[in-house]
């Protein structure tokens, strides 16, 4: 069910939207009142997108839940549902559930969590909240209709999926009236077999939908029906006259069960249609269309006063208003696998049957009116992808058709060529159906009919027929022509590949597929979703026109007429004024006139109508159930777009199309997604696999290493020069070429250095993300923590734009959560306490990020009660972490730092009395892992400030290189406080620990050589270097043999079993290709401390034994190496 190939994309996208939603939800909760319209719109859009994507990928629960939420949001937006705390809670909870589901999907590709409880709650809320507003209620109209008939008993309103049901109903509404008309026709038609075939196809699609819905009885009903039909067909072909009364029986049964299927099609009308043969066709079609969407009151009113044509038009307009236009459609059918032309031939039969079933045009009415075609492209941003796919198809098809048109006069097998064209049109028709561009679909059906006639030889001027339709189409969809023009030139000489391409995009049009794709199409929002995308579909069929033997002039006039008609329709859609109606009638009259006589002149004023701005539509909206924010959602008037240059998206698509390669579904989706993104977001960004960047970073690291190597070579060169000078006694002039070369070499080295520096910076910047990513997670945290407590906390964030390494961002996320939680739980007092302390009742928590040289500083400041050192002291004493003397010696700051000691926090958490301490040791560890530091300053009663200082990146660091024995070690410069040179006699021992006196305090020193058991027998013992490192909590000195200098090093990972417990955080490659291990200072200090604690323990036992033990202790370590 779930399309796993699309899943990663979905997860990323959903996560983004969820994050956005979280912000919006919090804003919503904060702002009470009406001014959060914008927020609601944002929320709604996010939800809509998630829903669409989920349906697209086939993630049912997310789709279901988000759909309900979408409805709920819409109700809120319209003001029908009040925004009570309960509602926001529900929204937040639902959002969390979706989050959870997405996480589950990410982990194991399945949705584990149930959503039913939330669905039920939403339902309760909606039903309770809006008891009587059928107009807005998300339930589809059939919901309310009483059901009778034996077939209906399977319909369980509680059980079925609204969306599926509406698709099902749609199918029913399209097919049943058609079948009805066919049944009537059957009695009078000469070619009964043909009619029966058409019926059979129609039933087949109905059956699929019944199957899909799990209506077994209904499916069986259809099966029986089909069997009867095939029996009848057999009898017919045997020359017998079967009893065709069964048709009526079957239809009656269905209508009894699903009365809504015949909405707008009263028995009376049916009778009329029957008597009016052979015109019944168009009549039946009118009903099809009028029953296309949910019934509307306007319709009846209009029906009473308008003539036939107006009735049909109006009904469709009213339909349009309710329809949601293009919907997220599974792409399965819209772009297809390419198959060979041979296969196509086989499929022709299929294609034909589909098209005939959907376009019942035989026997053709004697008089036909010109085609109408309306610009239906939706500008709804959510459906950009679909639109662009559709446009691409349109372009391909038009290019193909135009090309065929040129080839036609010269073609040897005209029939086949026309057949191919027809298939292309059939494909287009299906696309149009997907997009719910009814006018285009109808147009296509008409077109196919014309082509079929041309192929059969009944219409002589095939080229004309082709041309007329193509031009008409281009007229309305100017985007398509841009490419078609280009395609025509480039591709006309070599038609073969084009044929393949066009064919490939066409051939999915086989009945089964169509039905399936229709079924899988999530059309729920048709009834329920509130955003009315301006899909501009317009009735085509009632102004049906038989392709006449066209002349050149007619071609011209036709296209003009199309333009006029479409603009008139456009116009009539917007304000429902008499004027527009009049205008439309006018045009239609004109068209009708034209079919009989050539038109004399155009009406110039009609052209202006094309650009009737969308903004007028909302004025007509209320009565048509259109929510007001329409204009906000699509700020640009569609009509203007149409008149203007082609959409940007088209250009994007064009580039794609120009590549001859076939595209898979995914690629298509991707391409269109990209273009959509490009269009919607002003700042362009691409999503890149993090691994790729890591790889690049790695390579840059290599470059940095080679640069160091280069520098080393230059040094060696100098050495060589000196050597030559001394040993070989070369004169200065003899050495000159060498000198020059050395100089050039060093120049080149400098250049390389410059370039690699910039490259390194550039790559590092790629990894940089604004800390906003992190900060925007916390409002929710604060909200949750203060929810239902008597605390009021305002979270302020500053410096969100500060950028830092993505990896760093991820690693400080948790520490920040800890700190914020502490601040909220323990730092900031309750409202009453604050009032008592003469503080503003609202507490303030400030998150601030800024740069400080190579570091990022994140400060978390609260104005709470602060940390009381006395209490910390008491606690530390009580827990036995430190003894009294130690504590006495500590400064206040040091005492506060105790909260970050492991062992301190747990007690604090258990009693939950005061201050901080929940997981502060974890915080410290995390920060230290990043080579960062954490500082705490606090004043009792005034607040606390935590200051986290972390390096910008973790991949390349500044480091101090030291030597111990023969080993070279790397110490991150962030940990280095200073370096000292001491003499042996300066070291004294306190409690078995080597210490030195520095600035009036003692500082423990560790021999790096001893910790790592490095043989340094050759080193002089008297003078030594001490690197003073800081772990944040304490400063210690590391005794090394030599300081090699400061270098920029690239951190390379070490195997985990080498890292743990060894005191090494990684390794780096030196200029000469050697390896130097990078010290993990906090870990190292810990190891050294443990060793010392061991020693101390021994010492406590007895001095003698300690001595003995101490030597022993060092022994085994030496053996290891």
């Amino acid at each position, binding site marked *: 069910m779930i399309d796993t190939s699309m899943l990663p994309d979905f997860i990323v996208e959903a996560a983004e939207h969820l994050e956005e939603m979280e912000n919006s939800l919090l804003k919503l909760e904060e702002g009470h009142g009406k001014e959060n319209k914008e927020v609601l719109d944002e929320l709604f859009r996010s939800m809509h997108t998630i829903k669409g994507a989920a349906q697209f990928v086939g993630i049912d629960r997310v789709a279901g839940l988000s759909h309900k939420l979408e409805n709920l949001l819409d109700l809120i937006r319209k003001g029908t549902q009040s925004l009570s705390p309960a509602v926001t809670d529900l929204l937040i909870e639902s959002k969390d559930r979706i989050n959870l589901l997405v996480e589950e999907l990410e982990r194991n590709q399945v949705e584990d969590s149930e959503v039913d409880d939330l669905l039920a709650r939403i339902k309760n809320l909606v039903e309770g909240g809006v008891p009587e507003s059928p107009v807005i209620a998300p339930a589809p109209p059939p919901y309310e209709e009483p059901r009778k008939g034996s077939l209906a008993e399977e319909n369980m309103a509680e059980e079925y999926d609204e969306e599926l049901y509406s698709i099902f109903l749609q199918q029913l509404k399209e097919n049943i009236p058609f079948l009805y008309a066919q049944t009537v026709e059957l009695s009078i038609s000469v070619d009964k077999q043909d009619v029966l075939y058409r019926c059979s196809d129609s039933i087949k699609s109905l059956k699929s939908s019944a199957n899909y819905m799990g209506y077994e009885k209904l499916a069986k009903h259809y099966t029986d029906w089909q069997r009867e039909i095939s029996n009848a067909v057999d009898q017919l072909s045997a020359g017998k006259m079967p009893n065709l009364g069964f048709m009526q029986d079957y239809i009656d049964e269905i209508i009894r069960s699903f009365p809504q299927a015949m909405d707008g099609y009263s028995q009376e009308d049916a009778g009329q249609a029957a008597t009016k043969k052979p015109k019944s066709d168009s009549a039946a079609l009118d009903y099809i269309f009028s029953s296309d969407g949910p019934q509307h009151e306007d319709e009846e009113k209009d029906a009473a006063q308008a003539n036939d044509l107006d009735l049909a038009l109006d009904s469709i307009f009213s339909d349009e208003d309710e329809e949601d236009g293009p919907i997220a459609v599974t792409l399965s059918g819209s772009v297809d696998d390419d198959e060979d032309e041979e296969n196509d031939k086989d499929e022709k039969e299929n294609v034909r049957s589909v098209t005939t079933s959907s376009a019942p045009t035989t026997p053709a009415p004697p008089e036909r009116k010109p085609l109408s075609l309306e610009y239906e492209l939706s500008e709804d941003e959510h459906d950009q992808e679909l639109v662009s796919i559709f446009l691409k198809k349109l372009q391909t098809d038009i290019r193909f058709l135009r090309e065929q048109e040129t080839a036609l006069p010269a073609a040897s097998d005209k029939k086949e060529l026309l057949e191919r064209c027809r298939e292309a049109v059939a494909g287009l028709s299906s696309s149009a159906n997907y997009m719910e561009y009814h006018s285009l679909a109808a147009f296509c059906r008409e077109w196919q009919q014309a082509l079929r006639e041309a192929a059969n030889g009944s219409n002589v001027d095939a080229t004309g027929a082709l041309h007329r339709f193509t031009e008409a189409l281009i007229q309305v969809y100017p985007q398509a022509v841009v490419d078609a023009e280009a395609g025509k030139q480039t591709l006309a000489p070599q038609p073969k590949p084009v044929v393949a391409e066009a064919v490939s995009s066409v051939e999915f049009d086989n009945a089964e597929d169509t039905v399936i794709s229709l079924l899988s199409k999530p059309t729920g929002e048709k009834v329920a979703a509130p955003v009315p995308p301006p899909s501009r579909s317009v009735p085509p069929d009632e102004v049906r026109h038989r392709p006449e033997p066209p002349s050149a002039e007619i071609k011209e006039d036709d296209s003009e007429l199309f333009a006029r008609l479409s603009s008139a329709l456009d116009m009539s859609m917007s304000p429902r004024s008499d004027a527009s109606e009049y205008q439309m009638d006018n045009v239609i009259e004109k068209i009708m006139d034209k079919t009989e006589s050539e038109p004399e002149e155009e009406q110039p004023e009609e052209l202006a109508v094309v650009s009737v701005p969308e903004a007028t539509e909302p004025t007509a909206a209320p009565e048509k159930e259109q929510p007001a924010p329409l204009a906000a959602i699509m700020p640009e008037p569609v009509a203007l777009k149409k008149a203007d240059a082609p959409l940007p998206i088209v250009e994007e698509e064009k580039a794609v199309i120009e590549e001859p390669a076939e595209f898979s579904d995914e690629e298509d989706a991707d391409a269109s997604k990209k273009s959509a993104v490009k269009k919607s977001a002003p700042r362009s960004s691409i999503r890149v696999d993090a691994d790729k960047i890591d790889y690049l970073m*790695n390579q840059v*690291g*290599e470059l940095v*290493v080679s640069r160091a190597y280069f520098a080393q070579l230059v040094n060696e060169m100098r050495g060589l020069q000196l050597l030559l000078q001394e040993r070989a006694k070369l004169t200065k002039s003899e050495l000159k070429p060498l000198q020059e070369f050395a100089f050039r070499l060093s120049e080149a080295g400098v250049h390389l250095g410059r370039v690699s520096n910039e490259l390194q910076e550039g790559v590092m910047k790629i990894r940089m993300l604004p800390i906003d990513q992190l900060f925007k997670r916390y409002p929710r945290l604060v909200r949750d923590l203060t929810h239902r407590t008597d605390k009021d906390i305002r979270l302020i964030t500053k410096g969100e734009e500060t950028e830092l390494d993505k990896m760093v961002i991820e690693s400080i996320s948790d520490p920040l959560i800890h700190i914020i939680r502490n601040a909220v739980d323990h730092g900031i007092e309750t409202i009453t306490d604050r009032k008592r302390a003469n503080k503003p009742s609202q507490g303030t928590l400030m998150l601030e990020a800024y740069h400080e040289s190579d570091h990022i500083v994140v400060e978390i400041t609260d104005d709470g009660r602060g940390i009381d050192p006395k209490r910390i002291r008491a606690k530390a004493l009580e827990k036995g972490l430190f003894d009294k003397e130690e504590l006495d010696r500590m400064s206040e700051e040091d005492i506060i730092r105790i909260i970050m000691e492991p062992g301190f926090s747990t007690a604090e958490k258990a009693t939950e009395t005061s201050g901080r301490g929940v997981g502060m040791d974890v915080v410290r560890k995390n920060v230290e892992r990043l080579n960062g530091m954490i500082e705490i300053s606090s004043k009792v009663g005034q607040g606390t400030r935590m200051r986290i200082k972390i390096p910008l990146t973790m991949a390349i660091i500044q480091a101090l290189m030291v030597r111990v024995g023969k*080993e070279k070690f790397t110490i991150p410069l962030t940990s280095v406080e200073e370096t000292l040179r001491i003499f042996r006699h300066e070291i004294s021992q306190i409690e078995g620990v080597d210490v030195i006196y520095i600035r009036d305090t003692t500082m423990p020193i560790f021999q790096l050589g001893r*910790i*790592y*058991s*490095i043989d340094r027998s050759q080193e002089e013992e008297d003078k030594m270097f001490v690197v003073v490192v800081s772990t944040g909590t304490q400063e210690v000195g590391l005794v090394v043999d030599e300081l090699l200098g400061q270098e920029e090093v690239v951190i*390379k*990972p*070490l*195997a*985990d*079993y*080498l890292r*743990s*417990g*060894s*005191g*090494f955080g990684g*390794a780096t*490659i030196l200029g000469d*290709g*050697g*390896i*130097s*291990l990078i010290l993990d200072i906090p870990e190292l200090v810990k*190891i050294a401390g*443990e060793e010392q604690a061991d020693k101390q323990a021994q010492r406590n036992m007895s001095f003698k034994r300690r001595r003995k033990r101490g030597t022993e202790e060092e022994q085994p370590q030496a053996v*290891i*190496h």
Partner: protein
Amino acid sequence: MPEGFAAEKRFADREEKEQLMQLVGFTIGKEQFGVDILMVQEIIRSAPITSVPNSPDFIEGVINLRGNIIPVIELRKRLNLYRKESDTKDAWILILDIGGRVTGFIVDSVTKVLKIMESTIEPPPDVIMAGLANRYIKGVCDIGGSLLILLDFNRILMADELQQLGSIKGE
């Protein structure tokens, strides 16, 4: 039709390949060992090894393999085989890719690439082979009179993690 034939042939080829296994043979002391050639990334002669203090003793250190830092395990120590002979200079380092973890193993010598039928590989015997715990053995195989031991390097790496964990606790 020709396509079908080709597919059939490919299938047959694959089947043959499945049966035929290529091994890189190497020795430690007198014992002969083998490792699937597909795991072998490369074989290098002694590279400068940087020792890592405080690491398990069978870890010889790390090497720089074209910018990547790769741990090198002394296989003899790892498997607790006989006492190490004095000369390590001629040692070879087998660089293996073990489930994405590139690791070097020091062996005495690399002999040759062997082709054996997969069916000739037998499960490890219950008795201890060459003083080697049989959990590290994937199978044994007779090659012209002498026995070749196929090592299970996944186990070798995995177990060493366990050992490492144990040693931390021990500390």
